[in-house]
Protein backbone atom coordinates (compact mmCIF):
# COMPACT_ATOMS: atom_id res chain seq x y z
CA UNK A 1 0.00 0.00 0.00
CA UNK A 2 2.83 2.41 0.87
CA UNK A 3 6.30 2.16 -0.63
CA UNK A 4 8.84 4.74 0.45
CA UNK A 5 12.25 4.86 -1.12
CA UNK A 6 15.24 6.84 0.10
CA UNK A 7 13.16 9.77 1.33
CA UNK A 8 15.14 12.92 2.17
CA UNK A 9 14.07 16.24 3.59
CA UNK A 10 16.20 19.26 4.44
CA UNK A 11 15.25 22.66 5.81
CA UNK A 12 18.04 24.82 4.42
CA UNK A 13 21.24 23.27 5.72
CA UNK A 14 19.45 21.15 8.29
CA UNK A 15 18.95 17.63 7.01
CA UNK A 16 15.98 16.26 8.94
CA UNK A 17 15.24 13.04 7.04
CA UNK A 18 18.35 11.18 5.88
CA UNK A 19 16.98 8.47 3.66
CA UNK A 20 13.89 6.65 4.88
CA UNK A 21 12.85 3.33 3.33
CA UNK A 22 9.61 1.71 4.32
CA UNK A 23 6.95 -0.61 2.97
CA UNK A 24 3.54 -0.87 4.56
CA UNK A 25 1.05 -3.53 3.51
CA UNK A 26 -2.63 -2.83 3.07
CA UNK A 27 -4.43 -2.94 6.41
CA UNK A 28 -1.27 -2.68 8.48
CA UNK A 29 -0.79 -0.28 11.36
CA UNK A 30 2.73 1.04 11.78
CA UNK A 31 3.73 2.89 14.92
CA UNK A 32 6.66 5.31 14.83
CA UNK A 33 8.48 6.18 18.04
CA UNK A 34 11.58 8.25 18.66
CA UNK A 35 12.97 11.23 20.56
CA UNK A 36 11.71 14.74 20.06
CA UNK A 37 13.29 16.37 17.03
CA UNK A 38 14.14 13.07 15.37
CA UNK A 39 11.96 13.92 12.35
CA UNK A 40 8.77 11.94 13.03
CA UNK A 41 6.41 14.83 12.29
CA UNK A 42 8.37 15.82 9.20
CA UNK A 43 8.22 12.23 7.99
CA UNK A 44 4.41 12.08 8.26
CA UNK A 45 4.02 15.52 6.70
CA UNK A 46 6.13 14.42 3.73
CA UNK A 47 3.73 11.52 3.08
CA UNK A 48 0.87 14.04 2.75
CA UNK A 49 3.14 16.60 0.98
CA UNK A 50 2.47 19.19 3.65
CA UNK A 51 6.23 19.41 3.36
CA UNK A 52 7.86 18.76 0.01
CA UNK A 53 10.59 16.14 0.35
CA UNK A 54 13.96 17.05 -1.13
CA UNK A 55 14.53 13.65 -2.71
CA UNK A 56 13.18 10.14 -2.87
CA UNK A 57 9.99 8.49 -4.01
CA UNK A 58 6.73 7.63 -2.30
CA UNK A 59 4.03 5.46 -3.78
CA UNK A 60 0.65 5.09 -2.13
CA UNK A 61 -1.78 2.62 -3.67
CA UNK A 62 -0.15 2.89 -7.05
CA UNK A 63 0.10 6.68 -7.04
CA UNK A 64 3.74 7.48 -7.36
CA UNK A 65 5.48 10.74 -6.46
CA UNK A 66 9.11 11.27 -7.39
CA UNK A 67 10.54 14.19 -5.46
CA UNK A 68 13.82 14.44 -7.33
CA UNK A 69 12.07 16.92 -9.63
CA UNK A 70 9.40 19.55 -8.89
CA UNK A 71 5.88 18.13 -8.99
CA UNK A 72 3.05 19.87 -10.81
CA UNK A 73 0.31 21.15 -8.50
CA UNK A 74 -2.23 18.80 -9.98
CA UNK A 75 -0.11 15.77 -9.19
CA UNK A 76 0.42 16.98 -5.62
CA UNK A 77 -3.34 17.32 -5.14
CA UNK A 78 -3.95 13.87 -6.60
CA UNK A 79 -1.27 12.30 -4.47
CA UNK A 80 -2.42 14.05 -1.32
CA UNK A 81 -5.89 12.53 -1.65
CA UNK A 82 -4.44 9.09 -0.95
CA UNK A 83 -3.81 9.95 2.69
CA UNK A 84 -5.21 12.20 5.40
CA UNK A 85 -3.57 13.62 8.47
CA UNK A 86 -4.76 13.82 12.06
CA UNK A 87 -2.88 16.57 13.86
CA UNK A 88 -1.45 16.78 17.35
CA UNK A 89 -3.41 19.98 18.00
CA UNK A 90 -6.53 18.82 16.10
CA UNK A 91 -6.56 21.96 13.88
CA UNK A 92 -10.34 21.91 13.59
CA UNK A 93 -11.93 24.81 11.74
CA UNK A 94 -13.16 26.96 14.65
CA UNK A 95 -15.83 28.75 12.63
CA UNK A 96 -17.61 25.54 11.73
CA UNK A 97 -19.59 23.09 13.84
CA UNK A 98 -18.37 19.52 14.25
CA UNK A 99 -20.72 18.46 11.46
CA UNK A 100 -19.58 21.25 9.13
CA UNK A 101 -15.94 20.38 9.83
CA UNK A 102 -16.54 16.82 8.65
CA UNK A 103 -18.70 17.90 5.66
CA UNK A 104 -16.23 20.49 4.43
CA UNK A 105 -13.94 18.17 2.48
CA UNK A 106 -16.68 16.20 0.72
CA UNK A 107 -18.68 19.34 -0.15
CA UNK A 108 -15.91 21.77 -1.14
CA UNK A 109 -13.30 19.41 -2.51
CA UNK A 110 -15.21 16.41 -3.77
CA UNK A 111 -18.27 18.48 -4.74
CA UNK A 112 -20.59 15.92 -3.23
CA UNK A 113 -24.21 16.90 -2.81
CA UNK A 114 -24.78 18.60 0.58
CA UNK A 115 -27.49 16.23 1.78
CA UNK A 116 -25.41 13.22 0.93
CA UNK A 117 -22.31 14.72 2.55
CA UNK A 118 -24.35 15.51 5.62
CA UNK A 119 -25.63 11.95 5.95
CA UNK A 120 -22.10 10.64 5.62
CA UNK A 121 -20.74 13.13 8.17
CA UNK A 122 -23.47 12.22 10.64
CA UNK A 123 -22.60 8.58 10.21
CA UNK A 124 -18.90 9.23 10.81
CA UNK A 125 -19.53 11.37 13.88
CA UNK A 126 -21.81 8.68 15.26
CA UNK A 127 -19.05 6.18 14.66
CA UNK A 128 -16.56 8.21 16.72
CA UNK A 129 -19.17 8.57 19.46
CA UNK A 130 -20.17 12.20 18.87
CA UNK A 131 -23.76 11.83 17.72
CA UNK A 132 -24.88 14.22 20.45
CA UNK A 133 -22.24 16.85 19.72
CA UNK A 134 -22.64 17.29 15.98
CA UNK A 135 -23.86 20.86 16.12
CA UNK A 136 -21.36 22.15 18.66
CA UNK A 137 -18.49 24.44 17.73
CA UNK A 138 -14.96 23.19 18.50
CA UNK A 139 -14.60 25.55 21.47
CA UNK A 140 -17.56 23.81 23.09
CA UNK A 141 -15.86 20.40 22.90
CA UNK A 142 -13.24 18.73 25.10
CA UNK A 143 -9.83 17.94 23.63
CA UNK A 144 -10.73 14.28 23.23
CA UNK A 145 -13.96 15.16 21.44
CA UNK A 146 -12.16 17.62 19.17
CA UNK A 147 -9.60 15.01 18.22
CA UNK A 148 -12.38 12.54 17.39
CA UNK A 149 -13.92 15.17 15.11
CA UNK A 150 -10.45 15.52 13.58
CA UNK A 151 -10.41 11.79 12.86
CA UNK A 152 -13.92 11.90 11.38
CA UNK A 153 -12.93 14.87 9.21
CA UNK A 154 -9.95 12.93 7.84
CA UNK A 155 -12.05 9.80 7.27
CA UNK A 156 -14.72 11.73 5.35
CA UNK A 157 -12.44 11.85 2.32
CA UNK A 158 -12.08 8.08 2.31
CA UNK A 159 -8.28 8.11 2.25
CA UNK A 160 -6.38 4.88 1.66
CA UNK A 161 -3.98 5.73 4.47
CA UNK A 162 -4.49 7.57 7.77
CA UNK A 163 -1.56 9.47 9.25
CA UNK A 164 -1.64 10.30 12.97
CA UNK A 165 0.87 12.72 14.48
CA UNK A 166 0.89 12.23 18.26
CA UNK A 167 -2.91 12.42 18.30
CA UNK A 168 -3.17 12.08 22.08
CA UNK A 169 -0.14 13.97 23.33
CA UNK A 170 -2.02 17.27 23.79
CA UNK A 171 -4.81 15.57 25.76
CA UNK A 172 -5.48 15.31 29.47
CA UNK A 173 -4.71 11.72 30.53
CA UNK A 174 -8.34 10.79 31.16
CA UNK A 175 -9.25 11.72 27.55
CA UNK A 176 -6.52 9.66 25.87
CA UNK A 177 -8.45 6.40 26.01
CA UNK A 178 -11.48 7.55 24.00
CA UNK A 179 -9.26 8.63 21.10
CA UNK A 180 -7.11 5.51 21.15
CA UNK A 181 -10.27 3.39 21.19
CA UNK A 182 -11.47 5.02 17.95
CA UNK A 183 -8.06 4.47 16.36
CA UNK A 184 -8.02 0.85 17.46
CA UNK A 185 -11.42 0.24 15.87
CA UNK A 186 -10.16 1.77 12.65
CA UNK A 187 -7.17 -0.55 12.66
CA UNK A 188 -9.42 -3.54 13.28
CA UNK A 189 -11.58 -2.52 10.33
CA UNK A 190 -8.48 -2.81 8.18
CA UNK A 191 -7.47 0.85 7.73
CA UNK A 192 -3.84 1.27 6.76
CA UNK A 193 -2.28 3.67 9.23
CA UNK A 194 1.00 5.26 10.23
CA UNK A 195 0.88 6.50 13.81
CA UNK A 196 3.45 8.57 15.66
CA UNK A 197 2.74 7.92 19.33
CA UNK A 198 4.41 7.02 22.57
CA UNK A 199 1.36 5.18 23.88
CA UNK A 200 3.00 1.80 24.46
CA UNK A 201 -0.20 -0.02 25.22
CA UNK A 202 -1.71 1.12 21.93
CA UNK A 203 1.44 0.12 20.06
CA UNK A 204 1.52 -3.31 21.70
CA UNK A 205 -2.16 -3.94 21.11
CA UNK A 206 -2.58 -2.55 17.62
CA UNK A 207 0.70 -2.16 15.75
CA UNK A 208 1.85 -4.69 13.19
CA UNK A 209 5.24 -3.03 13.12
CA UNK A 210 7.07 -0.52 15.30
CA UNK A 211 9.78 1.77 13.94
CA UNK A 212 12.30 3.56 16.10
CA UNK A 213 13.49 6.80 14.52
CA UNK A 214 16.45 8.87 15.59
CA UNK A 215 18.22 11.78 13.92
CA UNK A 216 16.36 11.38 10.65
CA UNK A 217 16.89 7.65 10.22
CA UNK A 218 14.98 4.50 11.05
CA UNK A 219 17.33 2.86 13.52
CA UNK A 220 15.38 -0.27 14.30
CA UNK A 221 12.15 -1.92 13.25
CA UNK A 222 10.22 -5.00 14.30
CA UNK A 223 7.09 -6.32 15.93
CA UNK A 224 6.02 -4.52 19.12
CA UNK A 225 7.42 -7.43 21.16
CA UNK A 226 10.78 -7.23 19.41
CA UNK A 227 11.12 -3.49 19.85
CA UNK A 228 9.69 -3.06 23.32
CA UNK A 229 10.81 -6.28 24.98
CA UNK A 230 14.01 -7.15 23.11
CA UNK A 231 15.44 -3.99 21.55
CA UNK A 232 18.77 -4.62 19.85
CA UNK A 233 20.12 -1.13 19.29
CA UNK A 234 21.66 0.78 22.18
CA UNK A 235 19.81 4.01 21.26
CA UNK A 236 16.47 2.21 21.23
CA UNK A 237 17.16 0.81 24.72
CA UNK A 238 18.10 4.24 26.04
CA UNK A 239 15.01 5.84 24.58
CA UNK A 240 12.66 3.14 25.92
CA UNK A 241 14.25 3.51 29.35
CA UNK A 242 13.59 7.22 29.24
CA UNK A 243 9.91 6.98 28.35
CA UNK A 244 9.28 4.10 30.76
CA UNK A 245 10.88 6.05 33.59
CA UNK A 246 8.84 9.09 32.70
CA UNK A 247 5.73 6.92 32.95
CA UNK A 248 6.48 5.80 36.47
CA UNK A 249 7.41 9.20 37.91
Amino acid at each position, binding site marked *: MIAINNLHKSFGDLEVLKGIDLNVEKGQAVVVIGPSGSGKTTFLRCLNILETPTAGTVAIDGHMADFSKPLPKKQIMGF*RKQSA*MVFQHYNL*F*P*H*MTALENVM*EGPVTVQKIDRAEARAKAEELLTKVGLKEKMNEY*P*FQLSGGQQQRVGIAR*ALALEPKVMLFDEPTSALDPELVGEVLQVMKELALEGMTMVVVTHEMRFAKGVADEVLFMDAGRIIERGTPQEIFDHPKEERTKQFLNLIQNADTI
Partner: protein
Amino acid sequence: MKFHRNGLAKMYLNSIFTNPERLERLLDIAQSSFLPLLEGAIQYTIPLTLISFTIGLILATLTALARISTVKFFQIIARIYVSIIRGTPLLVQLSILFYGLPTVGITLEPFTAAILGFSLNVGAYASEVIRAAILSIPKGQWEAANTIGMSYSQALKRIILPQASRVSIPPLSNTFISLVKDTSLASFILVTEMFRRAQEIAAFNYEFLLLYSQAGLLYWIFCFLLSLVQGRLENRFDRYVSKA
Protein backbone atom coordinates in the same frame (compact mmCIF):
# COMPACT_ATOMS: atom_id res chain seq x y z
CA MET B 1 -8.21 89.34 21.64
CA LYS B 2 -9.71 86.92 24.09
CA PHE B 3 -12.07 89.58 25.30
CA HIS B 4 -13.02 90.35 21.78
CA ARG B 5 -13.90 86.69 21.08
CA ASN B 6 -15.87 86.32 24.25
CA GLY B 7 -17.68 89.41 23.33
CA LEU B 8 -18.63 88.00 20.00
CA ALA B 9 -19.81 84.73 21.49
CA LYS B 10 -21.91 86.64 23.95
CA MET B 11 -23.38 88.74 21.20
CA TYR B 12 -24.29 85.64 19.22
CA LEU B 13 -26.05 83.99 22.15
CA ASN B 14 -27.68 87.26 23.20
CA SER B 15 -28.97 87.83 19.73
CA ILE B 16 -30.56 84.40 19.78
CA PHE B 17 -32.19 84.54 23.16
CA THR B 18 -33.22 88.17 23.35
CA ASN B 19 -34.20 88.66 19.78
CA PRO B 20 -37.12 86.41 18.83
CA GLU B 21 -36.84 87.29 15.18
CA ARG B 22 -33.22 86.20 15.05
CA LEU B 23 -34.09 82.90 16.72
CA GLU B 24 -36.91 82.37 14.30
CA ARG B 25 -34.66 83.04 11.33
CA LEU B 26 -32.12 80.50 12.57
CA LEU B 27 -34.78 77.88 13.15
CA ASP B 28 -36.16 78.55 9.71
CA ILE B 29 -32.79 78.15 8.08
CA ALA B 30 -32.04 75.00 10.07
CA GLN B 31 -35.33 73.53 9.00
CA SER B 32 -35.12 74.49 5.36
CA SER B 33 -31.51 73.35 5.00
CA PHE B 34 -32.16 69.98 6.60
CA LEU B 35 -33.59 68.41 3.47
CA PRO B 36 -30.91 69.68 1.09
CA LEU B 37 -28.24 68.38 3.48
CA LEU B 38 -29.94 65.03 3.76
CA GLU B 39 -30.30 64.98 -0.01
CA GLY B 40 -26.56 65.58 -0.35
CA ALA B 41 -26.00 62.67 2.00
CA ILE B 42 -28.35 60.32 0.17
CA GLN B 43 -27.20 61.36 -3.29
CA TYR B 44 -23.49 61.46 -2.67
CA THR B 45 -22.13 60.90 0.83
CA ILE B 46 -23.71 57.50 1.35
CA PRO B 47 -23.20 56.12 -2.19
CA LEU B 48 -19.62 57.42 -2.18
CA THR B 49 -18.97 55.66 1.09
CA LEU B 50 -20.61 52.36 0.16
CA ILE B 51 -19.19 52.10 -3.36
CA SER B 52 -15.68 53.16 -2.36
CA PHE B 53 -15.65 50.82 0.61
CA THR B 54 -16.76 47.84 -1.48
CA ILE B 55 -14.22 48.47 -4.25
CA GLY B 56 -11.64 49.34 -1.61
CA LEU B 57 -12.12 46.05 0.22
CA ILE B 58 -11.69 44.03 -2.95
CA LEU B 59 -8.57 46.02 -3.76
CA ALA B 60 -7.35 45.60 -0.18
CA THR B 61 -7.83 41.83 -0.25
CA LEU B 62 -5.95 41.53 -3.54
CA THR B 63 -3.19 43.78 -2.21
CA ALA B 64 -2.93 41.76 1.01
CA LEU B 65 -2.69 38.54 -1.01
CA ALA B 66 -0.02 40.10 -3.20
CA ARG B 67 1.92 41.12 -0.09
CA ILE B 68 1.90 37.57 1.34
CA SER B 69 2.41 35.84 -2.00
CA THR B 70 5.72 34.22 -2.79
CA VAL B 71 5.98 36.10 -6.07
CA LYS B 72 8.44 38.97 -5.53
CA PHE B 73 6.94 41.07 -8.34
CA PHE B 74 3.47 41.10 -6.72
CA GLN B 75 4.97 41.93 -3.35
CA ILE B 76 6.83 44.92 -4.72
CA ILE B 77 3.86 46.32 -6.66
CA ALA B 78 1.69 46.04 -3.55
CA ARG B 79 4.29 47.69 -1.33
CA ILE B 80 4.74 50.63 -3.69
CA TYR B 81 0.99 51.17 -3.96
CA VAL B 82 0.46 51.12 -0.20
CA SER B 83 3.46 53.35 0.40
CA ILE B 84 2.32 56.02 -2.08
CA ILE B 85 -1.26 56.15 -0.83
CA ARG B 86 -0.29 56.20 2.83
CA GLY B 87 2.49 58.70 2.26
CA THR B 88 0.45 61.40 0.53
CA PRO B 89 -2.54 63.45 1.75
CA LEU B 90 -5.95 62.40 0.52
CA LEU B 91 -6.66 65.95 -0.57
CA VAL B 92 -3.58 65.90 -2.79
CA GLN B 93 -4.63 62.56 -4.30
CA LEU B 94 -8.11 63.86 -5.07
CA SER B 95 -6.67 67.02 -6.59
CA ILE B 96 -4.36 65.05 -8.84
CA LEU B 97 -7.22 62.85 -10.01
CA PHE B 98 -9.65 65.68 -10.68
CA TYR B 99 -7.59 68.79 -11.42
CA GLY B 100 -4.32 67.19 -12.48
CA LEU B 101 -5.24 64.39 -14.86
CA PRO B 102 -7.03 66.63 -17.42
CA THR B 103 -3.56 68.00 -18.24
CA VAL B 104 -2.69 64.61 -19.72
CA GLY B 105 -6.04 64.25 -21.38
CA ILE B 106 -7.87 62.25 -18.72
CA THR B 107 -10.94 64.10 -17.54
CA LEU B 108 -13.00 62.51 -14.82
CA GLU B 109 -16.42 63.43 -13.52
CA PRO B 110 -16.24 64.71 -9.93
CA PHE B 111 -18.10 61.66 -8.62
CA THR B 112 -15.90 59.23 -10.58
CA ALA B 113 -12.72 60.93 -9.41
CA ALA B 114 -13.98 60.78 -5.83
CA ILE B 115 -14.86 57.07 -6.06
CA LEU B 116 -11.44 56.36 -7.53
CA GLY B 117 -9.61 58.36 -4.88
CA PHE B 118 -11.48 56.92 -1.92
CA SER B 119 -11.32 53.35 -3.24
CA LEU B 120 -7.56 53.57 -3.70
CA ASN B 121 -7.30 54.96 -0.20
CA VAL B 122 -9.40 52.29 1.47
CA GLY B 123 -7.57 49.67 -0.59
CA ALA B 124 -4.21 50.72 0.81
CA TYR B 125 -5.18 51.19 4.44
CA ALA B 126 -7.42 48.12 4.67
CA SER B 127 -4.84 45.92 2.95
CA GLU B 128 -2.60 46.25 5.99
CA VAL B 129 -5.49 45.23 8.25
CA ILE B 130 -6.39 42.24 6.09
CA ARG B 131 -2.78 41.16 5.71
CA ALA B 132 -2.27 41.19 9.47
CA ALA B 133 -5.55 39.31 9.96
CA ILE B 134 -4.58 36.61 7.45
CA LEU B 135 -1.16 36.21 9.06
CA SER B 136 -2.79 35.91 12.49
CA ILE B 137 -4.58 32.70 11.48
CA PRO B 138 -2.50 29.74 12.71
CA LYS B 139 -0.51 27.81 10.09
CA GLY B 140 -2.32 24.65 11.23
CA GLN B 141 -5.51 25.95 9.59
CA TRP B 142 -3.81 26.03 6.18
CA GLU B 143 -2.46 22.55 6.79
CA ALA B 144 -5.81 21.15 7.85
CA ALA B 145 -7.32 22.65 4.71
CA ASN B 146 -4.57 21.12 2.59
CA THR B 147 -4.85 17.70 4.13
CA ILE B 148 -8.54 17.51 3.20
CA GLY B 149 -7.48 18.30 -0.35
CA MET B 150 -8.26 22.00 -0.66
CA SER B 151 -6.47 24.18 -3.18
CA TYR B 152 -4.97 27.52 -2.16
CA SER B 153 -8.04 29.45 -3.25
CA GLN B 154 -10.46 27.03 -1.58
CA ALA B 155 -8.52 27.20 1.68
CA LEU B 156 -8.47 30.98 1.46
CA LYS B 157 -12.16 31.33 0.73
CA ARG B 158 -13.56 28.68 3.06
CA ILE B 159 -11.10 28.58 5.95
CA ILE B 160 -8.76 31.55 6.17
CA LEU B 161 -10.77 34.61 5.09
CA PRO B 162 -13.85 33.78 7.20
CA GLN B 163 -11.64 33.64 10.28
CA ALA B 164 -9.63 36.68 9.21
CA SER B 165 -12.87 38.65 8.79
CA ARG B 166 -13.70 38.17 12.42
CA VAL B 167 -10.35 39.56 13.48
CA SER B 168 -10.60 42.49 11.07
CA ILE B 169 -14.06 43.77 11.94
CA PRO B 170 -12.98 46.32 14.57
CA PRO B 171 -10.12 47.86 12.53
CA LEU B 172 -12.16 47.78 9.29
CA SER B 173 -15.03 49.51 11.06
CA ASN B 174 -12.59 52.27 11.88
CA THR B 175 -11.61 52.51 8.23
CA PHE B 176 -15.28 52.67 7.28
CA ILE B 177 -16.10 55.39 9.79
CA SER B 178 -13.08 57.41 8.70
CA LEU B 179 -14.28 57.06 5.13
CA VAL B 180 -17.71 58.47 5.97
CA LYS B 181 -16.01 61.59 7.31
CA ASP B 182 -13.37 61.74 4.58
CA THR B 183 -16.05 61.94 1.89
CA SER B 184 -16.47 65.57 2.97
CA LEU B 185 -13.18 66.18 1.15
CA ALA B 186 -15.01 65.45 -2.10
CA SER B 187 -16.53 68.91 -1.68
CA PHE B 188 -13.16 70.18 -2.80
CA ILE B 189 -13.51 68.49 -6.18
CA LEU B 190 -17.04 69.79 -6.67
CA VAL B 191 -19.06 66.77 -5.57
CA THR B 192 -22.19 68.26 -4.04
CA GLU B 193 -22.18 65.92 -1.10
CA MET B 194 -23.44 66.89 2.31
CA PHE B 195 -20.66 69.23 3.36
CA ARG B 196 -20.61 71.05 0.05
CA ARG B 197 -24.36 71.60 0.38
CA ALA B 198 -23.70 73.16 3.78
CA GLN B 199 -21.03 75.39 2.26
CA GLU B 200 -23.32 76.49 -0.53
CA ILE B 201 -26.22 77.30 1.77
CA ALA B 202 -23.96 79.14 4.19
CA ALA B 203 -22.37 81.14 1.39
CA PHE B 204 -25.85 82.35 0.63
CA ASN B 205 -27.09 83.23 4.11
CA TYR B 206 -23.80 83.61 6.07
CA GLU B 207 -24.95 81.29 8.89
CA PHE B 208 -21.71 79.33 8.87
CA LEU B 209 -21.81 78.22 12.48
CA LEU B 210 -25.31 76.86 12.14
CA LEU B 211 -24.85 75.04 8.86
CA TYR B 212 -21.47 73.50 9.61
CA SER B 213 -22.75 72.36 12.99
CA GLN B 214 -25.77 70.88 11.34
CA ALA B 215 -23.60 68.98 8.84
CA GLY B 216 -21.36 67.86 11.69
CA LEU B 217 -24.35 66.58 13.62
CA LEU B 218 -25.49 64.52 10.64
CA TYR B 219 -22.00 62.98 10.22
CA TRP B 220 -22.02 62.17 13.90
CA ILE B 221 -25.39 60.46 13.66
CA PHE B 222 -24.22 58.36 10.70
CA CYS B 223 -21.09 57.28 12.54
CA PHE B 224 -23.06 56.48 15.66
CA LEU B 225 -25.40 54.24 13.68
CA LEU B 226 -22.41 52.54 12.11
CA SER B 227 -20.89 51.78 15.47
CA LEU B 228 -24.15 50.03 16.40
CA VAL B 229 -23.89 47.91 13.25
CA GLN B 230 -20.27 47.13 14.16
CA GLY B 231 -21.35 45.82 17.55
CA ARG B 232 -23.91 43.52 15.98
CA LEU B 233 -21.41 42.21 13.44
CA GLU B 234 -18.90 41.49 16.18
CA ASN B 235 -21.48 39.52 18.13
CA ARG B 236 -22.42 37.55 15.07
CA PHE B 237 -18.85 36.57 14.32
CA ASP B 238 -18.04 35.84 17.95
CA ARG B 239 -20.53 33.01 18.14
CA TYR B 240 -17.81 30.47 17.48
CA VAL B 241 -15.23 31.66 19.98
CA SER B 242 -15.17 30.87 23.67
CA LYS B 243 -16.71 33.64 25.79
CA ALA B 244 -14.21 32.84 28.53
